[in-house]
């Protein structure tokens, strides 16, 4: 897929992944890789950006006596995700137009 196009969508894909359940890097990759091509090095800047834009909160938990960083969607993140749905509907219309 076109990189620029993909970049725009990936943030929402990650937000959608943690919408119902907090998650961590490896698990997010596992879930998303069922749907799209995503690598560990692609995810890192996205998580960083979401964190910086204050769309997600993070916290550390201990797992197997090591620390694991969890990502949780916050109110801003949920709002942003909901807003994106309108955009995706528009994209869907474009898709149908392109495909016709």
């Amino acid at each position, binding site marked *: 897929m076109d990189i620029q196009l993909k*970049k725009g969508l990936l943030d929402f894909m990650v937000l959608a992944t943690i919408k119902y359940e907090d998650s*961590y*890097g*490896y*698990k997010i*990759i596992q879930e998303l890789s069922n749907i799209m091509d995503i*690598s*560990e*090095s*692609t995810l*890192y*800047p*996205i*998580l*960083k*950006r979401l964190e*910086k834009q204050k769309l997600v909160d993070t916290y550390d938990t201990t797992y*197997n006596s*090591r*620390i*694991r*960083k969890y990502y949780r969607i916050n109110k801003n993140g949920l709002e942003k995700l909901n807003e994106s749905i309108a955009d995706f509907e528009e994209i869907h219309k474009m898709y149908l137009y392109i495909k016709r």
Partner: protein
Amino acid sequence: MNKKTFLNEFKKELKYYKKINSEEIIYYYDEMIQDAIDEGQDEETFIGNLGSISSIIANIIQDEDFVKDVKTANIDSLGNIVSGTVKVMSLIIYYFVVVILAIIFGSIFFSGFGMVIQSTLYLIFDQPTQTDLWVIVGVILMGTGIMILSFGLVYKTFKANDSIRLKIIRKTKEVYRKRSEK
């Protein structure tokens, strides 16, 4: 490559990207790899699939917003270096190394070449005894081996040329940075 080696090499490489939060990235990859191992994935295979360290870094700094944030120094080009002196300095060091290497490889080659020529001449013009003959053939073979070795070294060095050049540039930049930070 196992996790420890991978993370160490990654750390070493990240040193050149001062504004990237290397500790955080290392932490991220450490956790990612450990999670994969705990899930039963093969350590070496998983790390192999991550791609080369340079491509990982390239991928990370490709992200435009991220680039804006981290203000990465484009380490591999001399173009945006702070001072022209550094540029000249690193080029001088680079060519100095090239000349030194050429001298070393040249002398290895000529010592092999000399062995072959001298023994061949001896073989042709003097009448060597049976025992001498074995020694001479041995010396010719050794000389040939040394010549091949020098070719191999030149080939290897040419292949590694790029990384040598980059290392010198990086080192010079590092020295320069340290000095300007003082």
